[in-house]
């Protein structure tokens, strides 16, 4: 199917140049991986006057860990996240989640930052970034802003990013305590699928818990009532059973073509239980 919409293709030479182009062409879209953007243009969902390609910008394509803080540039692809030894060693939840994104071909192009910029409710990166309490670093012509991830997602396809701004990177502080993690995604088969529900779990040696659900509410959810229940307590079958009861309060799944709300709720309970157990095993060194 051809792209019938005509638009200007502009390749930004620098961040400053990108800001200027955005100002000149207010009806713009930013191109990084393009895996969402091209489909949206092709299907006529958006009709930008200009597409500003930032792929050539220096300094946005690195994965870096320094002073206990990880930064992932906005041009870093999911494949690069999967292949990164730093992420595998220190932020394995990101690797686990990245491995379940789409298919290899898509992961080679799609960026994690693009994923949170599209901010569709079924995004893959939401729950793990919520659990890691990431910070989104954006820049516009007036300077830099740091946005905590829980303030980043405003609604379906809506973020705190303002017109004229670009995401530079996502930062995550390395957890100080020994911890275990787990990620699970509900999909209809083993091949690439948009998440019908995701769950990310973190627990550490002092029994601190962080739990987030994705794809079961307009934006990713931190399950604070469940965390409050669990915090300070060692996992037990009884505790998990109590936690499962609280899932329904934390999420608001919908029924659509991919799954019913009843099934999403059921699966969030099951996936949380299994993820907690898996994270606990990891913490225990198993």
């Amino acid at each position, binding site marked *: *199917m051809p792209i*019938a919409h005509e638009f200007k293709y502009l390749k930004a030479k620098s961040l400053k140049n990108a800001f200027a182009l955005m100002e000149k062409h207010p009806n713009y879209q930013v191109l990084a991986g393009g895996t969402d953007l091209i489909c949206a243009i092709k299907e006529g969902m958006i009709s930008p006057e200009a597409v500003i390609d930032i792929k050539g910008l220096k300094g946005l394509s690195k994965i870096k860990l320094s002073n206990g803080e990880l930064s992932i540039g906005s041009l870093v692809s999911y494949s690069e996240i999967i292949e990164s030894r730093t992420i595998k060693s220190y932020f394995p939840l990101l690797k686990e989640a990245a491995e379940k994104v789409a298919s290899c071909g898509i992961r080679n192009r799609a960026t994690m930052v693009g994923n949170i910029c599209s901010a569709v409710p079924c995004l893959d990166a939401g729950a793990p970034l919520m659990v890691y309490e990431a910070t989104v670093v954006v820049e516009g012509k007036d300077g830099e802003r740091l946005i905590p991830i829980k303030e980043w997602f405003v609604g379906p396809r809506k973020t705190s990013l303002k017109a004229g701004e670009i995401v530079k990177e996502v930062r995550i502080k390395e957890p100080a305590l020994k911890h275990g993690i787990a990620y699970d995604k509900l999909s209809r088969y*083993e*091949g690439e699928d948009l998440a019908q529900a995701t769950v990310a779990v973190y627990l550490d040696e002092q029994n601190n818990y962080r739990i987030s659900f994705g794809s079961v509410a307009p934006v990713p959810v931190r399950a604070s009532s469940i965390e409050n229940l669990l915090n300070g307590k060692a996992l037990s079958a009884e505790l998990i059973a109590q936690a499962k009861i609280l899932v329904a309060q934390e999420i608001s799944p919908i029924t659509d073509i991919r799954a019913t709300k009843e099934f999403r709720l059921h699966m969030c309970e099951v996936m949380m239980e299994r993820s907690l157990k898996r994270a606990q095993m990891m913490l225990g060194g198993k």
Partner: protein
Amino acid sequence: MSKLKYIGKPTVRVDGKAKVTGAATFVEDIDFGPNLLYAAVVESPYAYAKINSIDTSAAEQAEDVVKVVVGKEFPYRFGLYMHDRYIFAQDYVRFMGEQVAAVIARTPEAAKRAAKLVKVDYTELTPILKVEDALCDHPNLVHPELKSYEHVPWFFPQDDSNIAHFRKIRHGDLDKGFEEADQVFEDVYYVPRYAHCAIEIHGAVGKFDHSGRLTVWTSSQSPHTQRHLFAEALKPLGITHNDVRVITPYVGGGFGGKAGVTMEIIAAALATKVQGHPVKVLWSREQEFYNTYQRQGVVAKMRIGVKNDGTMTAIEQLLYWDAGAYVEYGANVVNAAGLSATGPYRIPNIKIDSVCVYTNLPPGGPYRGFGYSEFLFGLESFVDDIAEKLGIDPIEMRLKNAIKEGDTLAYGGKMNPSGLEQAINKVKKELKWGEKRESKDPHIKTGKGISLFWKAPAMPPNASSTCFLKFNEDASINLLISAMEIGQGYHTVMAQIAAEVLGVPPEKIRGENPDTDRNPYEWQTVASHITWSCGNAVYNAAVDARDQIFDLVERALEKKRDALYLEDMQVKSKDEPEWSVPLRDFIIDGLMMKDGTWRGGPIVGRGMFMPEFASALSNPETGQGGKPNVHYTVGAAGVDIDVDEETGKVKIKKTVLAVDCGKALNPSLVEGQITGGLVQGFATVLYEDMRFSDKGKLLNPNFTDYKIPTVHDIPEKMVPIIIETAQPDGPYGARGVGEHTMIPCAPMIGNAIKDALNVRIKSMPLTAEKIVMSQKNQKK
């Protein structure tokens, strides 16, 4: 039979190199030059509406637009078995996405943009989206003119209704059969629609040259049938069969979706409006889903009478098919299923109603399995449940009732030779039936399930195949044949047949993709009948060529004809072990006599096959009297699965399928059909889930939400078993095997889930969600 040299061997595909290197040409690969134009269609946004007016003025003025064509310019109907389909919608649109008008432009982008500028004024009408609504007391009629439509003599439309065809089978005495039964069971099963999902989408290019020649390049399973339907449909424009030429290069998957004529008619028709310019119509993946053919949905109401020992005494099968807006092909699916809806069982008393119902959903049509997958989901699930209620092992129940050679078929004919019992026993052994496999994971329940299957080719009684076989100087051969190599290995098997007769190795024999000007007639590449039918034609052509060779050698070299045979590209004689003459020495140029004159000349074989014993004529009230089916291919299959009781996820640990293909001309290719069919069948039961809105809009015409399996989703182990009970009229005993291998998938998965979790799900697909939710509901 003497020892076979090429038949029964796993010969490497003759088209393999072309496909692996990318040299194989598909419609989209052909360069049509700078005059090529592109068309985009204007589609109906309603499932059912009246067209009041069409305003093309804005589109006509758009940049790069050459012509805008509206439906009324082609007020013609066409169809394979019934003339009920329009080239473009006329006064009414009958499904969402139906073509109403088209824009022809210099670029595909311009065509797509201008198509949006065509303004169509509609009056929306209430669509019929369910079979029950179509059959209510005073329904809206999808085709009020049904009674005036031409159709084949074996269709029985009911005037002033939405019933396009009503196939009745009445055999024995149904009431007596139920009286004789110790117990009578009944149940209802539902099967939704499915899409073929060939990787190559439909595309066609039409060119009407200044001499009045209409050439159409298509991605098709049916080039000759397309030529015939184009000529029939465009006859009012003065176009005849002699003017129409269809060229079909390699095809990237068919599965029935590229049989007959669907969107190709648009390219043929539009070409006549821009004489001299080729016009390309290329479907998008979305259009591929909603405007070609879909597999039809069915509601199956069954009643079966059994003795306490498991003997079946009577069956009533009421099949109501959601055939969509146009049934020109789909009505024959309904017919085929109606003839065979007993399944592969010997049941003396039979009532079958197979009813083809018009709805305002996309046109139904042929899909691998041709109705058999649909009714067997219900029947083979039901048989398991009956066995359970009688306390009989499901395999014993099937062995007791399995049809045998010579048994009477539902329409009164006799069953052909069959290895069904052998197939059941082999599957039973391979599956370790009766042994429960245990899983270490407490959430994983294991289950085994089986299903029988059968299918006959569904085709007109006089469907035929032909072959021209021509030799080249080096005694290599070109087979001019007109079935399609759609991945099944057709060219390879035809080469093997000719090789066996002529002693020329298969790698020296090319099958040529059809150009209807050059390649002789073939009905269509459908019905799993090509190996059998075209195989017979190729065999006959090879025998014809061999006769000519022997004639020549006898005449020119004075050899005793009866002693001659062909081997290693030479003529040899049983009488003279030392003597031989290479084919290349005479196959084109002939043989020189002592006086310098020549005998012979280029050898060209001709072969034809038509099943002269078949007949579609029968009593419309009973279906008795004809011989509509040329033979049945039968088999059995089973699965051993893991089901996660919490997530509903099914993992197929092992699957086994035994099919009696008569003779496996190429065992590797038969195994390919088995594994391919299984994977496709499992997808229909586990993942594929077509959804329509309450307005009749297809909600998932894409692979984002219509899931076909990836390499991660295939069974862990697949065991193909080949059984060979020769088909007397098949080439080297072969009968069809293409469609059959996907037919048992849905019921055997359903039966395995029942075994694992004790839940019976009666509507496809059996998704993880449905499994979990059914189980939760059952516990409530």
